[in-house]
């Protein structure tokens, strides 16, 4: 086992141990924080497929995070008001069932990612960054100005959605759901990186010309990576909305995109567990510094600046050394 594998195992166990301890010690707030870490890490795992593996610097992943959130909000709002989502050509009812909501969130995010990706991937580099940012912002303004689902105020859900056989209102059980989904996404992401698709994507990031020479289209590889990436981030958005029982346009805001990216960088770009380490550190700092000073974002900014300028591998890169990174 390499040192990075040990660190990954420690992170996975640590994220499990903290809420279990909090459950025994009866500290539900800590469990909620751990759930938040798991969900935000899941969003990061999604972005990391585009960013780390594909080299696609998307500054618009809040679009998928928000779509997932609104998929949950809209379906659950119709279910709790007993109004059908649409009546023509066929009657579609809302739902309070998590698996159905996840499926809808994943499909909607994937289709949107297909559309945004198909347009944005016509360009590269700095254009791509600006365009993904702009599309994210487009959905943000749309969510604000669309009055049917709360507009600027967002949507509240009275009771958390249900999962067959579990009581999702119990914090530790909801944490378990999020944790299992995170681990599944990490396992999927690890397999993806080693699959022929992942290897070709990695090659397309390093040398698109060579990939093209052997008859593979980098555009299609990247588009597929972008769609998978958006779908996972959309799933995280649905969970995040369920955690708060609230969705608002701020899930679409460009700060959200920036923060998801910050998790990855704090943890270590292209590291499997980078988003987990980054999200955990982010939530820890938010709690620790947020209590000390109202202006904790200044400290976060300085830390981020220091990581980017001086500690380029992030937490995992600093602890595990540069060896595992295959650039």
């Amino acid at each position, binding site marked *: 086992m390499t040192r990075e594998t040990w660190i990954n195992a420690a992170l996975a166990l640590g994220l499990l141990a903290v809420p279990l301890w909090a459950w025994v010690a009866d500290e539900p707030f800590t469990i909620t924080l751990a759930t938040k870490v798991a969900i935000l890490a899941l969003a990061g795992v999604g972005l990391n497929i585009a960013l780390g593996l594909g080299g696609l610097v998307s500054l618009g992943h809040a679009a998928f995070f928000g779509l997932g959130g609104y998929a949950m909000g809209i379906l659950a709002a119709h279910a709790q008001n007993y109004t059908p989502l649409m009546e023509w050509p066929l009657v579609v009812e809302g739902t309070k069932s998590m698996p159905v909501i996840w499926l809808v969130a994943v499909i909607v995010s994937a289709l949107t990612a297909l559309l945004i990706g198909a347009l944005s991937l016509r360009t590269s580099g700095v254009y791509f960054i600006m365009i993904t940012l702009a599309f994210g912002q487009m959905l943000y303004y749309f969510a604000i100005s669309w009055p049917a689902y709360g507009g600027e105020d967002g949507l509240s859900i009275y009771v958390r959605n249900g999962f067959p056989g579990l009581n999702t209102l119990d914090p530790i059980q909801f944490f378990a759901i999020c944790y299992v989904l995170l681990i599944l996404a990490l396992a999927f992401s690890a397999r993806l990186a080693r699959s022929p698709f992942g290897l070709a994507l990695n090659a397309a990031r390093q040398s698109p010309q060579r990939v093209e020479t052997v008859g593979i289209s980098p555009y299609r590889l990247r588009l597929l990576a972008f769609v998978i990436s958006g779908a996972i981030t959309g799933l995280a958005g649905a969970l995040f909305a369920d955690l708060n029982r609230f969705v608002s346009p701020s899930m679409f805001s460009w700060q959200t995109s920036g923060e998801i990216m*910050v998790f990855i960088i704090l943890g270590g770009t292209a590291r499997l567990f980078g988003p987990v380490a980054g999200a955990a550190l982010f939530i820890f700092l938010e709690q620790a510094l947020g209590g000390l000073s109202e202006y904790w*974002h200044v400290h976060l900014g300085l830390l*981020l600046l220091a990581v980017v300028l001086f500690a380029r591998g992030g937490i995992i890169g600093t602890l595990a050394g540069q060896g595992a990174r295959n650039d």
Partner: protein
Amino acid sequence: MALPGKPLGEQNKLMTTILLIEQVLNGLQFGVMLFLTAAGLTLVFGVMGLINLAHGSLFMVGAFAAAAVAGATGSFILALAASLAAAAAAGALVEMLVIRRLYSRDHLDQVLATFALILIFSEGTRWLFGSFPLYLNIPTWLSGPVTLPGGIQYPLYRLTIIAIGLVIAGGLFLLISRTRLGIRIRAGESDREMIAALGVDISKLYTIVFALGAALAGLAGALVGAIQSVQVGMGEPVLILAFVVIVIGGIGLVKGALIGSILVGLTDTLGRILLPEVFKLFLDPSTATSIGASLATMSIYILMAAVLVVKPTGLFGAKA
């Protein structure tokens, strides 16, 4: 505005024309303000190859400096001078401390470091000035409407913004095409090793270009601050619109930034009044207003997508 002695239908037609001309002027004013922000961003990208998310923060710095100086002295001219000076100083400082280390890095590092700068600037400003918005008043000698040819009443201040913007655009073209600094900037865009080898102090040139872009953004912030309120976070929406402008016009091109800005300004402003009217032709008025308004907020992004489909490097761009 009822005009005596004319039939009602003709009056309505006249009113619509006047409204339309007013909105075109508003769109121009918005576009010119965007140009001031986008010009610096596109120059910095063209010359240094740097994507700077913190450009919106410099816009905000200019607005706050202007509001503070106007509050202390009461002079609008001094306030504008302060916005230029403060934004240029902040730009030069940030360039020397942070940005300079990012030129050789990839875009991801640049995005993150400048995102960190936004956090520092925003929270720092909140700490200095508090969370409440400041107000910058339009001076009396610029307030009130003027009557344009054709009897259209239009605010003098907004006309002044259009004029200032166009003068600065002209000045920038002259600076880049006619002066020694402009020659160096253009040389820096095409081959930075070569101009360093020719004895130009490249790091000084970069600082100057960055400070110039910052000053323009700061001025835009101050000019807009008198129309809206001056508050933390005011820069980022403008930054994102400036990105849209640059994508439409082509990165690194001042001409592209000017045309792109005016296109975006007009599309946004006219979309907001025309789209609801278009939908009213085949939907009931309240649905039409809400759909039209929602689509209007998306119109500039749809414009951007359309330009991308036709020309991925922007209207005037050659290189990707």
